[in-house]
């Protein structure tokens, strides 16, 4: 009885793991990760600008966030637009802006440009707000 229950659970888990995700499911899975990485980049850059974290850590954390966001954006860009092409296009545009903002911050931190970063952080914050709105429209909450 127990063995059967375990087998069924495993089968269900494997099926859900191997099954084809719809574009909507992919967006729901990837968007929170992008939002999390953008928020991480925001907080790391803010902390770095006020001397709360070392350069090496800030570089590492920003590069990692940048790479994660890039991978997710590539994944979402390759999805078919589906029924609501306008929202999809808008989402990808916002994601690309978030990606660009993180890249700018990462470059500035690498160069040690402490005075430039606060303005870039503000810009990233604006992009995050816009992204959160679109995520809300798509029914993806954090």
């Amino acid at each position, binding site marked *: 009885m127990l063995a059967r229950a375990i087998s069924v659970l495993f089968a269900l888990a494997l099926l859900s793991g191997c099954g084809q995700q719809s574009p909507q499911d992919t967006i729901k899975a990837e968007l929170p990760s992008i939002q*999390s990485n953008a928020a991480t980049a925001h907080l790391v850059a803010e902390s770095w600008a006020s001397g709360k974290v070392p350069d090496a850590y800030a570089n590492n954390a920003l590069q990692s966030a940048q790479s994660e966001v890039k991978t997710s954006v590539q994944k979402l860009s390759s999805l078919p637009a589906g029924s609501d092409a306008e929202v999809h296009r808008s989402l990808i545009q916002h994601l690309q802006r978030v990606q660009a903002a993180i890249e700018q911050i990462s470059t500035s931190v690498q160069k040690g440009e402490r005075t430039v970063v606060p303005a870039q952080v503000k810009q990233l914050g604006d992009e995050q707000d816009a992204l959160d709105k679109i995520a809300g429209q798509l029914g993806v909450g954090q």
Partner: protein
Amino acid sequence: MKKIIQVALGILTSIGGFLDVGAIATSAQAGAAFGFELIWALVLGTVCVTFLVEMSGRLAAASKHTLAEAVRERFGAKFYFIQYIVEVVVDFLVLAAEIGGVCIALQLVTGLSYRWWVLPVAFFLWLLLWKGTFDLIENSVAILGLVTLVFVAAAVVVKPDWSSVLAGVVPSVARHDTAHYLFIAVSIVGALVSPYLFFFYSSGAVESKWDREYIGVNRAIAVVGMGFGSIVSLGLLVAAAVVLHPRGIQVDSYNQAALTLVQPFGFIGFLLFAASLGITCFGAALEVGLDQAYITAQAFGWRWGESQKPSKDARFSMTYTVVIFLSSLLMVAGIDPLQLTLFTMALSAAILPIVIVPFLVLMNDERYVGKYRNGWISNAVVIFIIGLAFVLAIVALPLEILGG
């Protein structure tokens, strides 16, 4: 006076022993992803581990048997061999994750990739086991482990809504992402009720020559030590819930977890996070490395004891040498330490039944514990834990796939 010092040291050791890479990773993840919602899992894990650690120590003090020896003798070699194999596999992965945790701490501070630190850390770990005695290792790790009290300080400084914290003690249904919620809950329990802790604790008690006079000391260490350790984990969860959760930061890497202390304490907070991670993982790695050697030596009837010179118990010393080397190779290969930690914690939950069921028999067998048998409360708790362990064992791996 001597007993008071032993209790104090035991409590310190328990705080160090309670916290490890799993407790840090799962507490930070729980707070970041679900706010205060998963505090109940921490409380549940703490109650379970406190009872089981107390029983491991009572068994050792009353019978002068380690848990492994008692299981082998009472249940036979076949049963013990199965328990030994699953424990060795999980210990091996836990050890790799702990070494990874130390290396990540060094990466945070230096910026040099954790993979470069693996072999030096493994060598230093081995050297300390080779040259040190049980008391030296336990006491130094325990005292250094006090740095983790910074998590408690952080929880106070970030000023959480304490009524919401208290509400988190009551189990609740996930408000979103149910599979991930349950996976983290299982991982928290798996991280706290670490099987290695019981084998290690009873071996340490036998090595420290505990007898029946230590029954009270053991109880005090288990209750107060595990209680304090739990408060430290709770501190991290609360700080992560206040600092990371509102910003939507999920803890997918230790880079993100470090921010928990940066907000309340600035640069010092960053350094204290790295120190806490490094010290607790190093302490836990020493314990898991020793545990591998203890259970292997006890399985095959070899001479064992960390306080003896390696030449006196060559096979025991060779065991921890080999497992430290092999575990470090896993990290050199580039496996993500956080992902390995979470996977291992779920696996720990999955093997709990085979580790915990023997407690019910041993702690009621007068040939081992004499008049120090379990009372009805302890038996009721063990039966509850066994039930819980079976549920965790069934759901742990599917949840790993669905929500991990």
